[in-house]
């Protein structure tokens, strides 16, 4: 969708190397999320942000860190990539977050990461 971009779209990296994925939005939305998608597991939340410098862990946060120094950018870092982190990573944004008053998420096109 227009308004959210992920980079890179594809990446192959070696085990043990650090990797940073970028999510950029032009919607000025407060909430941003990082999910990973693996067969049979659907989408699992890694980390999310509810404002600049405000982040929290999701269901599968081990081995990942995030940073949000500007409203528009949310970075996901794999400190030392492992083969189990081979996955498709999706960033999502939301204007009002989660809950009855929230709206649906808008997802980016994803980053396919392969750790060899």
């Amino acid at each position, binding site marked *: 969708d227009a308004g959210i971009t992920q980079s890179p779209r594809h990446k192959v990296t070696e085990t043990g190397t650090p990797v940073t994925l970028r999510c950029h939005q032009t919607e000025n939305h407060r909430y941003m*999320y990082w999910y990973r998608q693996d067969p049979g597991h*659907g989408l699992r*939340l890694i980390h999310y942000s*509810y404002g600049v410098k405000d982040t*929290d862990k999701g269901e599968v946060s081990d081995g990942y860190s995030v940073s949000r120094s500007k409203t528009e950018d949310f970075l996901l870092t794999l400190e030392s990539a492992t083969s189990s982190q081979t996955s498709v990573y999706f960033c999502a944004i939301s204007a009002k977050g989660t*809950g*009855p008053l929230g709206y649906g*998420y808008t997802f980016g*096109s994803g980053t396919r990461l392969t750790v060899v």
Partner: protein
Amino acid sequence: GQQVMQIPQYQHVQEGEDFTTYCNSSTTLSNIQWYKQRPGGHPVFLIQLVKSGEVKKQKRLTFQFGEAKKNSSLHITATQTTDVGTYFCAGIVGGSARQLTFGSGTQLTVLP
């Protein structure tokens, strides 16, 4: 672990047949959302249900939220090849109200 269960995991239908996917939670959901992901694409938001017993329609798609707010369903009438994709439900379970938990999805194949 997965706290929002979705069945079936796969469904093959002949074009023109109906299709239903079910979403169940062991805890009450404050709201539930449905998404569609085309093959090779990203999830796209379809709808949100909030009220107990709520029913919403989008053309051939009918969404229901159970009376106890623990289950939901998506029904597609007279499937078309454009309906192909994976359908996910998502809701808030336990913990932080800021975390949306997705079901594992139902992958729909429509045979022409």
